[in-house]
């Protein structure tokens, strides 16, 4: 299963689902990571965590374990 944490630099993909069991689930969808949206990995911090995604016209940084709950097509 491909998640946002597996994206390479500059790679784009569509979100198909968000893992509802993740403790940050609600925050993740509220900030705009919803099924059907296209995201792109634009930056990684040192140690490859957190990751920054381009989403809905802005850039959102989330931790790697949070990115793992974002399931891509």
């Amino acid at each position, binding site marked *: 299963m491909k998640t946002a944490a597996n994206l390479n630099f500059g790679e784009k993909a569509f979100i198909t689902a968000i893992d509802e069991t993740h403790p940050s689930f609600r925050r993740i969808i509220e900030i*705009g990571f*919803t*099924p059907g949206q296209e995201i792109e990995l634009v930056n*990684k*911090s040192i140690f490859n965590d*957190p990751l*920054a995604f381009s989403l809905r*016209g802005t850039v959102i940084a989330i931790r790697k374990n949070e990115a793992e709950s974002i399931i891509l097509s």
Partner: protein
Amino acid sequence: MIANTTVSTPLVTLVGPPNSGKTTLFNLLSGKNFKTVNYPGSTIEYNSSHFLPKFDINCNLLDSPGIISLVPSSPDETITINSLYEHPKFGIPKLVIVTVDSSQLSRHLLLVKQLLSSNFSVIIVLTMADILKKKGFTISASMLEEKIGCKVVKIDGRTGKGIEDLITVVKQQLQKENDEVTYLNKIVPNLHAENVLNHFKEIEAIENEVVNQIADEKDLRRANEKLTTLSQKLQSKPDSFTLKLDKILLHPIWGLVLFLFITGAMFTSIFWLALPLMELVDESFASLANLASNYFGYNWYGDLISDGIISSAGAVLIFVPQIVILFLILGFLEDTGYLARGAMLIDKPLSKIGLNGRSFVPMLSGFACAIPAILAARTISNRKERLLTIFIIPLMSCSARLPVYALLIAFIIPKENFLMGGFIFSFIYLFSIISSVIIAGIINKFNKSIIREEDNSSFILELPAYKIPRFSSVYRNTISSTKAYLKEAGPVIITFSIILWALTYFPNTNPQIDITNLSPEEVHEVQKMERVSTSYAAQIGKFTEPIMKPIGMDWRIGVSLISAFVAREVFVSALVLIFKITGDEETLRDSLLNAMRNAEIEGTNQKLFTPSTILGLIVFFVFAMQCLSTVAVAKKETGSWRIPILQILIFSGFAYFAAFITVNGLRLLGFA
């Protein structure tokens, strides 16, 4: 919940996601006149104000903290959101103005949807249409109004254009007959996830209709040029300049190098810029104190006013320049959008020791003063991480330690040797940073017994588009942080300084001394010292003898260390009093250093201040929890005495232990 429309002054509340231009709008509507009000019994702050007189609207205007959703995720957010529904002081808002970034429509309309489904009376203010235009798009306010079902006004935050339209709409909405009882519905959390997804679907449909490509030929050509390189959904692409700049500023290696450089430069500039101002405060209060004792004469109340009150007010105000400069610089960095990147860069290392990228700014502020730093920890939504951040902030080397280190270093390093002094200074800072990281890690390991909180650790942060910072938005935070410092530290320092003054003044108020050949000033000085050495403070100090002896010191340092509990820098002035130093301002430190060199542990020929006891003292000041105002603020912000008491026990206990090891270790190695 039933809306109570009988509240005397109607309330208009500003709501909006972070980075949506809410603060700019608040400034435009209210001028720079505002009061910071705390939600009773909590640390949530609201800025309250009124509309500018020229707008002729008699309403309270409330600015609320930035939120992205009406469903809270942390205890603080629960309070923020509950008081949006009904504020304990101002009541229920008659009108809610929501700021929405035009280029972020699809994210920011979520809050609007939630407010509307809660039955709030809502006006949308569209901001940053210029950014959308730069991307080649335009937004139709009237279309949005029709689709979403509430009034929409466009405002240009830079020029204030559109503000008159907003005022007209606000007046219309307020005048609307509001006889029917309004019910405000709280959003039910368990249905929430599905709601959010549905809202987003509706919003995306709306966005497609209201946002259009610019038809103007010239703009269109420019937009078309961009279209060839970007995907078709151009408005969903972040600002390209920001993406380019982030390639450097968030680079795994260069990003880190620049991060260290920027924070380092910030520090240095804080110290250099603040230094002349601090000297100015110091000198003016010294001459004010002189003036007072000349005016009132050399009696107990003259002494109370000059030594007790004026000097302690000076001790409070001397840190204002540093705090103002720190928050100005932090504010500018925040406003450019860089601080969010800093938090992202440092999140991983900090999460290893149980902290969060958001702990970074509070910890940095701790190098100026722990009080505003502890207040700044409010931005950390995770309770455990917030408490842990507050816990270790006193270990950051605050500026009150500077005069102490300066004196102690001057004792071991000759004045001419600038380089060595500077080197030791940097070493102390590095030492304090490394040891506070280690201590934070240890405290995190014992989280269950020390912090006693467990919370889902999360880091979700928008990295806003870079922009040129504006003074008006920086100004507000600087003022409120400075006010917070004065309010929290002022009364504590002044009260305890007066108590300390009394302890050093009584009971021997009129000591007998030989006054032959002495000027009135000299008589006053000699009397003062005689009074101190026979005072209550000296008597109490003698009790510290058994504690001070193992670390090679005596009761005189003990008294000074107790005085340092008021504020660390008081240590120096306490030494001046105890070692009976007289002299004019210029040579005060030299005479103190001389007295320190000659001081012997009472009853022996052993020197009191040696390189090993000096290093022991430095180590003590690195770790010890000494500042009463910090204790008071930590109590207030954590909601109980537990954390501040643990800070005193753990930090001061460890400080004593470390000083013991340092002094005795050095002596075993053959140092004096």
